[in-house]
């Protein structure tokens, strides 16, 4: 793969399914994987789903992980610990939806993992409303 992969982690499977659909509109060339809900697709997160999602878009170009709430982070970090080589995997400190949008745009133009994570984290400073 020539583009940084994006993994979307949420407590809700439906939420990340919708987000994926929204993102797929922008750039088809960006590998996107989702990990939503518990192993029974209830509200929660599942470390094995996250691990699998990361693996499914893994390349040395890198993987950027975005998540919704703190408890998803616990499982995301645990998933990383279960993987052998995590040099090319980074978790973004960014809002899920807005960060994922920026990440996909940046990955779509061939950005590096550091640039993709940077774009995602920049959305914290995004002024959404001009008053």
């Amino acid at each position: 793969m020539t583009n940084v992969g994006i993994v979307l982690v949420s407590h809700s499977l439906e939420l990340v399914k919708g987000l994926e659909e929204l993102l797929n509109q922008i750039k088809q060339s960006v590998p996107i994987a989702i990990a939503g809900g518990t192993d029974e697709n209830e509200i929660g997160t599942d470390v094995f789903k996250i691990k699998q999602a990361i693996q499914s878009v893994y390349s040395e170009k890198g993987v950027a992980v975005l998540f919704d709430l703190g408890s998803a982070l616990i499982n995301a970090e645990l998933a990383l610990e279960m993987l052998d080589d995590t040099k090319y995997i980074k978790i973004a400190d960014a809002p899920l939806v807005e960060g994922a949008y920026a990440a996909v745009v940046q990955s779509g133009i061939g950005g590096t993992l550091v640039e993709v994570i940077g774009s995602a984290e920049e959305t914290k400073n995004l002024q959404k409303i001009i008053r």
Partner: protein
Amino acid sequence: MAFTVDEAKLWLINLNKIYQQEKMYLSELDQAIGDGDHGINMARGFNELNKKLETAEYHTTADLFKDAGMVLLSKVGGASGPLYGTAFIKAGGALKDKEEVTKEELAAALFESLEGLKLRGKARLEDKTMLDVWIPAIEFLQNHPKVDWDEFKKLVKEKMEGTKKLEAKKGRASYLGIRSVGHIDPGAASSYLLFVELARVCEGVGL
């Protein structure tokens, strides 16, 4: 007498019974400062674990703990899942292939659990989490060559109740800020129950 795989199993089986009983109570605590599912989460996870324990055979406490950790990891759901899962996996890792576990070894293993909890959750003392029970509990076990289990039970109860006055800094409850004060942390409550059941089993074998 010593702590063997039988005691480990008994502990977890008893714990399952307790979590089924206290399901509503734990969820009510979580309703006040979280999303109201902690009792459901623990009951679900330990029910799965119980099913597993009924059929699987383990030769060492280490194997049993590691397997238990894996079940909790994926079946509890919520933040407490990877936390309790990590705790058991780390304890299992520390115990290696020991058949009889001494009090010192058990304390050392649970210290590894605590390190795992800290690494995973990045919470500190007084952040109003399960750590507010775990940290003093492990300290007590490590500092007392011979443990007075009644004292231990008193301690963890106090610490669990002590979370009431704290403001949450970690987990969902932290969104409430100062409004989280006045409620017992649900994870502290489930950890309290975990240690009480451990104390009972240890007393039973005169550890």
